[in-house]
């Protein structure tokens, strides 16, 4: 752990050359992973990540130095190195550290470290057993990961706080093959929870069944035709469309520098009026939640878009200086080797008024994207792309047959305005999001929605 006395020394040292803000982030983390292929445990890996990073600001300039040497001397050397990169006549005295308190909103009943690996493997076998019921599934992969991350954060504003984040996830992949062609399906439920997640949130059999059915369905599907058409996107991981097409462009990382297509548009209509979208870091035990962010700020429930009007951005400390707007508890980082920046947490389109069946029945000819893969975006231009894991061709309002290999492309600002139906049943799904400050757990989510026209890539 990071002792208060040492944290204070480090912060004082970091401010000694004229910085106007200093912070230390100290991390100790245990990771466990098990991978199983075709029912056999292939590897079991445990590791301990351990280090700290010191950050100093002067105006908009930021310096970050990190190290594995977390002895008092190591941390002070780290602070000194950070301080040496900034020079000014300012001499601030740090506010004395005071322990900050919060209520833990994400209870963990069973720490993963208290559970024998053999019991974790039993859960994996339950998923694997499902695969054997599908003759065309030639390969089943089940991965299990857990992590206990303990962080201590202290800064020159007097903050001294800590958090423990416990993650558990199972990832199942089915490969279906007819000898000439392969198709895959995957499903990876997870939670900000311990082993108790298997009692409430992670159902290994259900995940494996979805993965297997998807792979088998796609093996028998012809390739998706290319063109511009209406698309219905299902709930759950379908929310990746909002994550890519809009979410990244609302992170202060791209907004503050004016690089985002949504810079300077607060209060303006950027989406169809049926669209309300949130980024909520407070949802109990959700994959993208945490009590405090990686700058020690309590997380928030943030309305990004309300009835089509842009209401908020996701803002970290450095960018809050640039934007002269308050922080939103959105600063995140993969681990101590990254300086934090604004990132998404649990990001979703809120439930609307429309009927799931009606939106397909009235769409004419188009595509029903039942399960999405991942995607990416260039926030400067808003150009996004994502792949569809499981899609169905719709003719005259009726689902005709599955199609494979579809992708959706477009520009975020354009897509948001073309959403013409928002269903009632919001559901979220888990993913890992990669950006400037590394890879962090995020939830995506939405009810079923319809986009009136979108470019579908296919053959």
């Amino acid at each position, binding site marked *: 752990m990071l002792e208060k006395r040492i944290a204070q020394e480090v912060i004082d040292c970091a401010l000694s050359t004229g910085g106007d803000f200093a912070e230390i982030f100290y991390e100790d983390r245990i990771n466990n992973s098990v*991978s199983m*292929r*075709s029912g*056999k*445990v*292939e*590897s*079991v*890996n*445990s*590791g*301990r990540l*351990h*280090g700290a990073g010191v950050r100093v600001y002067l*105006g*908009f*300039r*930021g*310096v*970050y*130095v990190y*190290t*594995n040497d977390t002895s008092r001397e190591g941390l002070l050397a780290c602070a000194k190195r950070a301080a040496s*990169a900034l020079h000014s006549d300012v001499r601030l005295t740090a506010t004395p550290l005071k322990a900050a308190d919060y209520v833990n909103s994400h209870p963990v009943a069973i720490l993963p470290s208290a559970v024998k690996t053999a019991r974790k493997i039993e859960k994996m076998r339950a998923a694997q057993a499902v695969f054997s019921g599908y003759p065309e599934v030639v*390969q089943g*992969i089940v991965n299990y990961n857990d992590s206990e991350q303990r962080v201590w954060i202290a800064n020159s504003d007097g903050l001294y706080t800590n958090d423990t984040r416990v993650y558990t996830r199972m990832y199942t992949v089915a*490969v279906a*093959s007819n000898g000439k*062609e*392969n*198709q*895959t399906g995957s499903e990876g439920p997870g939670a900000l929870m311990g082993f108790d997640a298997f009692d409430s949130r992670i159902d290994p059999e259900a995940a494996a069944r979805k993965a297997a059915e998807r792979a088998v369905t796609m093996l028998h599907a012809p*390739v998706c035709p*290319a*063109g*511009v058409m209406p698309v219905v996107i299902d709930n759950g991981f379908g929310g990746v469309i909002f994550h890519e097409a809009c979410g990244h462009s609302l992170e202060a990382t*791209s907004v503050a*520098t004016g690089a985002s*297509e949504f810079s300077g548009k607060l209060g303006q209509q950027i989406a169809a009026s049926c669209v309300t979208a949130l980024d909520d870091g407070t949802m109990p035990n959700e994959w993208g939640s945490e009590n405090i962010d990686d700058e020690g700020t309590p997380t928030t429930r943030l309305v990004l878009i309300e009835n089509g009007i842009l209401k908020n951005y996701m803002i970290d400390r*450095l960018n809050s200086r640039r934007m002269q707007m308050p922080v939103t508890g959105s600063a995140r980082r993969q681990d101590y*080797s990254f300086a934090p920046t604004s990132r998404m947490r649990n990001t979703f389109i809120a439930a609307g008024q429309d009927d799931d069946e009606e939106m397909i029945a009235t769409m004419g000819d188009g595509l029903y994207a039942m399960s999405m*893969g*991942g*995607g*990416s975006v260039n926030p*400067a*231009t808003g*150009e*996004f*792309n*994502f792949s569809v894991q499981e899609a169905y061709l719709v003719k005259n309002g009726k689902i005709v047959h599955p199609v*494979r290999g579809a*992708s959706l*492309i477009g*520009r975020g600002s354009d897509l948001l305005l073309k959403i013409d139906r928002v269903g009632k049943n919001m559901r979220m799904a888990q993913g890992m999001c990669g950006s400037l400050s590394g890879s962090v757990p995020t939830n995506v989510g939405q009810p079923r929605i319809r986009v009136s026209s979108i*470019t*579908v*890539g*296919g*053959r």
Partner: protein
Amino acid sequence: MEKDLFIKKLLEAALTAGVEAAEVYTAENDSFRAMSHNGEVDNYSVASRSGLSLRGLYKGKMGYAATEAMDEEAIPMLVQGVIDSAELVEDDVVQEIYRGDAEYPQIDNYAPALDQVDEEAKLRLLLDMEKKALECGDERIKQVNYNMVNTHSGSVRIVNTYGLDLRQRDNLAVAYVSVVAKDGEHVSTGTGFGCGREFAALNADKMAKEAVEEALFMLYAAPIPSGSYRVIIDRRCMPDLLSTFSSVFSADAAQKGMSLLAGREGEMIAAECVTLMDDPHMAGGLASGAFDAEGVATKVKAVIENGRLTTLLHNLKTARKAGVASTGNASKGGYSSPIGVQPSNFYFKPGEKTLAQLMADMGDGLVITDVSGLHAGANPVSGDFSLLAKGYMVENGQKTKPVEQITVAGNFYTLLKNIRAVGCDLEFVGSPVGSPSIDVGEMDIAGK
């Protein structure tokens, strides 16, 4: 604890605990990264990080454990971690800790002068790139949205209970600049990039110019009608595609049913003009090395020779299973990762024709210069891809208008067979995977 002593104690403790053979793998890394915005350095990060992992055979099974904390407590934790994990492993392929090769190639991946470059020089290059891009004289260039200089210097070491002790150092400098061009509703980005072990060779002018030219050329880009087009994938884009599908050449993927190339050694899998090389000895190569992640000496080989699959890439485990010798392609994603398989410097051997000649031969068609969304839109298991793409039209062999907001879709295995010609313009751009421009025949495009 001093590292040599830690390693010695750790290996002794492993043997004492009944581990039959053990190996320590360490990675150390010093890095520098700076970014700037509007002439000010706003993100500056320096670090040193080291990690260590222990692998060991216990009752014939391989166990793993890793740590970044190297204190007295870490030794029993690592040894117990290896034993616990080995006891749970059910994979029945016999694994081994390598005894070593008689000889290792001499590979120079480390330029001492690069480690001596001071931070001031790095910051000068950084600010210069941004300034040169903004002062390009074209007012449509509104902003530099990403500007970065990064250097790293690291070493890996493999020490095992058979007395093997291998070390390798490497360092590298990377610079990257991205600009935004705007004109009314039109917006585009362009990037400039440089990397190498000679810092002075990173040219701010050249990188800024590349970024500006690309952004301006793409500014008025538009989709083209959906349909089937003749396509050349250029040398900047082809490496991304090859890299994404490189796992199809891994024996590990093949043995697990994740590659359709399983058991197809000796068969024609590509057009006759295609030769695919894996060259870990390449001078200046980003993935050059004398030994792989298991300590096996690396080798130069053709993976595809004139269209024929000659070998898959192996580590010790996959080689033993297939009854062949390791090709020296064992990899580790990080110091703590399990052993996998990966190519080294991996590239299509260049042919005779320039890009202009390929375009002339094609007549009318499309040159693709960039694809996005590879992590999701390309599936190495099926070979299918459907990707957001950019590029330009070719009419009568001449470059005409820029194209964006299209997708290119196909299948990697089919693409290999449909290749009509391989260009001569091979270049490695910040990646150990390289390619010349390649005429891939007909492809399906979705546009407007």
